[in-house]
């Protein structure tokens, strides 16, 4: 199950969020050697803030975090505007209905290959469900050479924002994808997903009027 975690309900998910930042440290810093900082063993960057939306998948049997991704509003400073702007040929897409996806992080115990690809498909379905819920029209993201082809072919309507470029040790490319009900159906169909991936838990549900 993928939990949609926002400013309103993040107090219910402190343990899961802590585990997510721990996973991000072991995946992005220890394994992939990205030049990020993680004092106290948690990878937290300048864009992690209360207004970000996190999708965190947990295992049904023990609640362990199996994967996570971050959604940032593009009206404020985000990765694409501050770090990857040169990857967008016609400028960084920004607006209230455009969100940026970053920090897709399979838990360290998720094996390479099929299990990680299946997680990616579930997460993208989760992103689209969340996007439809929050009124997003499209998302932007930067993908490395390994992830870009997978993300392009997962079923949604995705298009590159510019050419593949070398940054440090990686070849990266900026991509945008439309958030539509048809796209969600296509992602579900192509990846054999049935029904919604996401849940939105709230401490107190407002009573119906």
């Amino acid at each position, binding site marked *: 199950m993928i939990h949609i975690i926002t400013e309103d309900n993040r107090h219910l998910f402190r343990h899961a969020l*802590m585990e997510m*930042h721990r996973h991000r440290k072991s995946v992005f810093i220890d394994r992939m050697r990205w030049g990020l900082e993680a*004092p*106290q*063993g948690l990878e937290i960057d*300048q864009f992690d803030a*209360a207004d970000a939306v996190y999708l965190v998948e947990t295992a049904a049997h023990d609640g362990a975090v199996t994967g996570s991704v971050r959604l940032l509003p593009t009206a404020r400073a985000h990765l694409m505007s501050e770090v990857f702007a040169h990857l967008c040929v016609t400028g960084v897409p920004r607006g209230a209905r455009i969100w940026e996806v970053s920090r897709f992080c399979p838990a360290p115990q998720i094996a390479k290959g099929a299990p990680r690809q299946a997680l990616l498909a579930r997460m993208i379905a989760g992103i689209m469900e969340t996007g439809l819920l929050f009124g997003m029209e499209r998302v932007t993201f930067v993908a490395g050479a390994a992830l870009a082809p997978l993300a392009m072919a997962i079923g949604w309507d995705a298009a590159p924002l510019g050419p593949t470029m070398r940054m440090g040790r990686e070849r990266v490319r900026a991509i945008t994808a439309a958030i539509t009900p048809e796209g969600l159906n296509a992602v579900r169909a192509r990846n054999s997903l049935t029904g919604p991936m996401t849940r939105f838990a709230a401490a107190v549900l407002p009573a119906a009027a």
Partner: protein
Amino acid sequence: MPSSRVAIEFMEKCRAAASADAVRDVLFADMAAMGFAYVACCSHVDPLRPPPGAVNMINYPAAWLARFSAENYAAHDPVFMAARTSAVPFFWDDVLKGRRLTRLQRDILQDAAAIGLANGLTIPIHSPGALPASCSLVPGPDGVDPLQVPAVFLMAVYAHERARALLDDGAHALRPALSARERECLALAGAGKSDWVIGRMLGIHERTVHNTIERAKKRYGVAFRVQAVVRAVLDGQIRIDDLAD
């Protein structure tokens, strides 16, 4: 090291505190509000018989402190040992798992965990002229928001320095003068900006920012930039308000 509102308000309350006991009360209250059930911001000494000048702000269960004192655990506590050799904050589980521990040290950890002192976060405090110290924080059952953790670092170091200053108000700490650029860079670092961001804001190279902050650290003789920020706030060279985002 982003200074959230919480950290800034905390520092203001500490600065207004007239005694080390008042700093302790603020520390316990604000850490509890963030979800930490237990706090031990202290010099590495016998908690029930602290020597003069020792910082001793601890709300661990009384029975544990009695045992800690009777068995002289201060000399063996693996968390204290790790704090002494670590430059950065650490979660107990991350640091202690890979270490070679004595039987006594394993017992200390196990028995502490049995009474709820588990999965703590420790901020080492290396302060010139002070006893070796650290601030250990144990999350309660509801956990702690990870976005608060960087602020906790600043709060712990500030509380320790403030308590120490109040305990030892006869002694005058050296007050090295910072250059305008050093003050500017430290204040921005204290507001959570990276070297790269500070460089862009001031129109100087990231490397220059780094070197400037290193120079300020050297003036204070401290190991971390957060300590230099705290010293500069305590001796009035930067204002707490300057740390707001």
